[in-house]
């Protein structure tokens, strides 16, 4: 094995994540990444590409995406229009074959990284339609009767938010990793990477309040890493004194600048109720 992924200066990878990435890279299997929103699933692919110095191709899946679109599309409407206008291009069907991200990745001169983002958003049959493509890294273009093969087996990273269950046949071909929500030590390292030289006290206090907010039972949307980072950015921008954070008992007041952490009114309301209750008790 020549290269190992070990996180980057912008991305902290835990031991198990590194293992998953390296196993997938070594064996040339797709890596399926799940985890809470905001734990850096999409970013992982970008960081792998950056740290291994490989080109990156992205395929963002939407609810209307079809597996075929990642391979190629036959632009029948253009061809129809050209034929009505008598354009000479119309005679070569290859002019109307548009390459998809998967094809682009297969065509790459050096081994690329391909991100298939949010695969669970697509139709339930979507992963099944990619089985052969991901397994053999080749597909057939029926219109031009041509077999497209990967020059270099791409490193494929697939992310999922668990909105749909993926078929077993698909899972069997992937390596799987669930990004767990980071613990406090890891979180401190992550923040350090994003805001180097942040005051120690501020970081400690912010993390403390953050995890307290996260552990509040009944929250509809728990704040995640990206929200913490936004919040800290705000705290720094507003130049909040760590002492202010410390003096606030999160049980008695809403955390300062809570808008960055709590993303819907029910959660804010829940917090206000808790605060209210706690004030009455003491």
């Amino acid at each position, binding site marked *: 094995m020549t290269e190992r992924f070990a996180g980057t200066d912008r991305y902290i990878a835990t031991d198990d994540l590194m293992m998953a990435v390296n196993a997938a890279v070594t064996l040339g299997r797709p890596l399926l990444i799940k985890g809470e929103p905001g734990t850096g699933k999409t970013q992982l692919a970008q960081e792998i590409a950056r740290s291994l110095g490989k080109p990156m191709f992205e395929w963002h899946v939407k609810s209307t995406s079809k597996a075929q679109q990642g391979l190629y599309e036959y632009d029948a409407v253009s061809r*129809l229009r050209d034929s009505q206008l008598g354009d000479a291009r119309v005679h070569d069907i290859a002019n109307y074959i548009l390459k998809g991200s998967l094809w682009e990745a297969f065509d790459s001169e050096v081994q690329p990284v391909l991100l298939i983002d949010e695969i669970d958003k697509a139709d339930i049959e979507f992963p099944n339609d990619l089985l052969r493509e991901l397994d053999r890294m080749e597909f057939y273009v029926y219109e031009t009767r041509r077999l497209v093969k990967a020059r270099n087996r791409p490193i494929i990273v697939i992310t999922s938010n*668990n909105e749909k*269950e993926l078929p*077993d046949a698909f899972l069997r071909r992937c390596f*799987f990793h669930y990004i767990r929500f980071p613990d406090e030590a890891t979180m401190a390292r992550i923040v350090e990477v994003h805001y180097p030289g942040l005051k120690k006290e501020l970081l400690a206090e912010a993390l403390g309040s953050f995890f307290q907010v996260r552990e509040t039972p009944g929250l509809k949307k728990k704040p995640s890493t990206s929200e913490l980072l936004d919040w800290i950015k705000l705290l720094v921008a507003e130049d909040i004194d760590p002492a202010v954070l410390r003096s606030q008992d999160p049980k008695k007041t809403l955390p300062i600048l809570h808008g960055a952490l709590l993303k819907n009114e029910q959660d804010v309301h829940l917090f206000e109720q808790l605060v209210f209750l706690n004030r009455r008790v003491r």
Partner: protein
Amino acid sequence: MLVKFFFELRKGGVPVTITEFLTLLAALRAGVAWASAQDFYYLARTTLVKDERHYDRFDRVFAEIFNGAQKLFEEIVANVPDEWLRALAARTLTEEEKQKVEALGGWEKLLETLRQRLEEQKERHQGGNKWIGTQGTSAFGANGYNPEGIRIGQAGSRNRRAVKVWDRREYRNFDDTVELGTRNMKLALRKLRKFAREGAQDQLDLDGTINATARNAGLLDLKLVAERRNAVKVLLFLDVGGSMDDHIRVCEELFSAARTEFKHLEYFYFHNFLYESVWKDNRRRFAAVTPVMQILRTYGHDYRVIFVGDATMSPYEITQPGGSVEHWNKEAGSVWMGRMTAAYPRLVWLNPADADRWEYTASVRITRELVDERMYPVTIQGLDGAIGALRRPLGRGRTGSQWGGELIPGHEPSPSPR
């Protein structure tokens, strides 16, 4: 050894396939985890487990199988000088030997070889006594070879962690036999959604248009279709009060989840069991009741009916006229339930009480019989089962055109883990 691990995983409810197992072996051979026991754990998990719900089961099996090995491993590190081990690791088995043994098809065979090597080493080194002794007798000696073993000498520092990852069982919450939150519920209920094309034909059917145009010798021929709409209609009956108080939160979550998932949803409350009337507003439950007869008349048999209740009460409340705890009911609850199941072929009962205890309550058994065994626990698995029952197409003759249409392309309830 690893074969045993494989079978234990399957026995432990982790759906591992042979392909995945072979992938793990391939990864080991490729040297992905010639690291520590922990690296081996991570590698095994990433190759064998494909769903975070199974992480906990995997952890349990892993702990059981490799506990001895881990202890052994620590002893080794404690008792054997580093250089010695490093040398051993390099020398123990050559590449060809590894391939040869692979070809012979046995890890067991491989272990034999390793054990022999270790025996030889014993003759030459006094310090090795204890280690080899353990290795020789322990069934977990197998671990001596798999890559974590080889790395022993170098990995000493990595292994100081007090609590092993797989013993922490951090993924307990993802196991899908435990109860679920609103979001999970939504996902489960979403499977019930059925789309049918209804209403005016106002969307361009691109495929149809191209097809028709081609057939029309290249002259445009526009085709239109109707929009796809969610066509599932649901009647929801919720048990309130009494023994259901413990489960009220789960019920409310189910309710709030259900609300956003269907176009037609009617909900009613009942107490303990279904009698001649139900109500829609708990504050006015005696003032504003809806007769069940009216429901039977109003809502067509294409509605799907979901009862939510723990069905825990005195059996007489179901079987006897006048059995209700609140009022005098002329006809027994079972009669009303019979009318319900006859009118609505697609009917399930969700029971938030622990499924293990159902057998011990007479009223639960009776209710299950009344709903033809279509009682399901409120877990993801249970909900999957319930949705499966609700999605069953109606028999012929009953098929009305207003709810014809295709289901979301074939998503069957996921098979049980074994």
